[in-house]
């Protein structure tokens, strides 16, 4: 098992109880999708796994090691092994695509060299290869904010590939993209999962995408896991439980 989450709680300072005892495990090579309404705790859960947010109680075990309370250098070493892709891409807008991709390697580069932006031939080669993997090798020299939404998200995926991650977290990676672009971006996650064998945990909204890409599904509601299983078993009744009585399923292809 690559990741194990045990009885995880998160209470924010304003009193919101975002996670209420979440427990699950992820096997190597899985494509796990987490679904649920906005505010159900999906984003909090992902950020607790790579410690962008400190969980209030519970345990996160990554590669057999308890990482819930590690700090400093040790925490940074763990973070280098977990890639993350965000809904808003979170690129450095004014810098070139290639620089953005290289930032994925910062964790294993020296502070002084990275301040001078002196990178080795190998780093550049890896960055170009990562861009090839997501199909935008020719955009390397362009400014990040001149790219379209879908292209920016592919740069963000390339950035996470620079980490050679064991685990890739994706927080609603296609929620700000149009349907056609959504599918193409999801295909890159599938490719990374199948070809590189990287374990993927992905938050998604659309059930049609879930059915197409997920190998397993977890549904969160108000901070608790209410469903765990394979995507095909989510029928109409489960859908209503997860998304509420008034919800109607929409297709996205």
């Amino acid at each position, binding site marked *: 098992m690559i990741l194990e989450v045990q*009885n995880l*709680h998160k*209470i924010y300072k304003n*009193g*919101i*109880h975002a996670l*209420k*005892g979440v*427990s699950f495990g992820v096997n190597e090579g899985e494509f796990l999708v987490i679904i649920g309404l906005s505010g159900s705790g999906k984003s909090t859960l992902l950020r607790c796994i*790579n410690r*962008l947010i400190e969980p*209030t*109680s519970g345990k996160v075990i990554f590669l057999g090691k308890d990482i819930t309370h590690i700090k400093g250098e040790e925490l*940074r*070493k*763990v*973070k*280098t*092994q*977990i*890639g*993350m892709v*965000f809904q*808003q*891409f*979170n*690129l*450095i*807008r*004014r*810098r070139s695509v290639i620089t953005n991709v290289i*930032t*994925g*390697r*910062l*964790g*294993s*580069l020296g*502070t002084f060299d*990275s*301040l001078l932006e002196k990178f080795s031939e190998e780093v550049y080669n890896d960055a170009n290869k990562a861009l090839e993997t997501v199909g935008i090798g020719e955009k390397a020299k362009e400014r990040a904010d001149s790219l379209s939404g879908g292209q920016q998200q592919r740069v*963000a995926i390339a*950035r*996470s590939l*620079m*980490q050679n991650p064991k685990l890739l977290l994706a927080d609603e990676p296609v929620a700000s993209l149009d349907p056609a672009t959504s599918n193409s971006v999801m295909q890159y996650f599938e490719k990374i999962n199948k070809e590189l064998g990287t374990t993927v945990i992905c938050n998604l909204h659309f059930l049609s995408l879930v059915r197409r890409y997920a190998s397993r599904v977890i549904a969160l509601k108000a901070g*608790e*896991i209410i469903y765990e299983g394979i995507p095909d078993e989510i029928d109409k009744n489960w859908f209503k439980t997860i998304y509420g009585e008034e919800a109607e399923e929409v297709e996205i292809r």
Partner: protein
Amino acid sequence: MKQNPILDSHPQRIIAKNKEREAKYNLVKAILLDIFFVFYTIIAVQRAIYYKFILDLRELPFSWGEIGIIFIISVIIGTTWALTKTSLSCKLFGVAKDNKVTRWTVEIFGWVLFNVTFIAGWVVTKLSLVDLFSAEGIEGAQRIFGALFQPEMGIFDDALFAIIETIYIALLATLISIPPTLILSFFTARNLMRDNKISFAVYYILRIVLNFVRSIEPLIWAIIFSVWVGIGPYAGMIALLVHTIASNAKLYSEAIENIEEGPVEAISATGANKIQIVWYAVVPQIMLPFLSFTIYRWDINVRMATVIGLVGGGGIGTMLMQYQGLARWHEVGLIVLMIAFVVWVMDYISAKIREAIY
């Protein structure tokens, strides 16, 4: 799934407790503010309106005993009033009862407060249309305006050197301020310093020091430094430098606080260290605002440098003060025109540059 009962009740309890505490604090604040309002009203009516305006006394009588009695009276009235929860301050802090009495007291007392302040202000500033438009006054105005519009060109070369000195004072103060301001701004940005207790303490202390330095006008700094390093352009430059660092550090750090958090989150998720995060996720976002603030500050500093000259900070201001002391209004006229021209040009140039870089 196992539920933890203590954790479950936790948040609600905290929220309820916070609300209670807030209401209590607000009532205390309301009492204090009401005491102040009553005290202020009595003092303003008694001293400004009664003594000065109605009795037209030159020397105001002053005794601590009297002030003390007024203060005690205000404490009694203010406290009682606030505790009925119908006072102005209760309304301001949101702890007032919602009834007719509250509305009436708020309206009447608000009206009284405004008028007392306005009348007292009128009396204190000795506002007098008679002085402005008396025959004597008009004659003086004619004399000075006549001189100002007939500038004495004989001192043009001296004035030119003086104004160039002023521009250099401003430029050097701005340039030297950049490195210390940059460093300080990172240490006074809340979002970079809140992570642990030590860095937060540094943040807090630096903020207090900078606020203090900034609250002292460059004019006062010039007086201090003219005693310290001697009268002249050097004193003026240091005075401007100190104030520029303090005010720009505030502007810079606010720019840092307003950056998008997304890139910071993304870079820190890759396992980058703190310095790398700042260099890659923060610095690119603040370059333009920093440049813009600095250019604008140069423009401000040119204006300030002329004023600082008045207290011995060198440059055109010092020259202006000398001729004003000799009542040579034609020379003063030339200097004023030159200052106006340079300030206008600087203003225009800095606006153009700032437009161009955005």
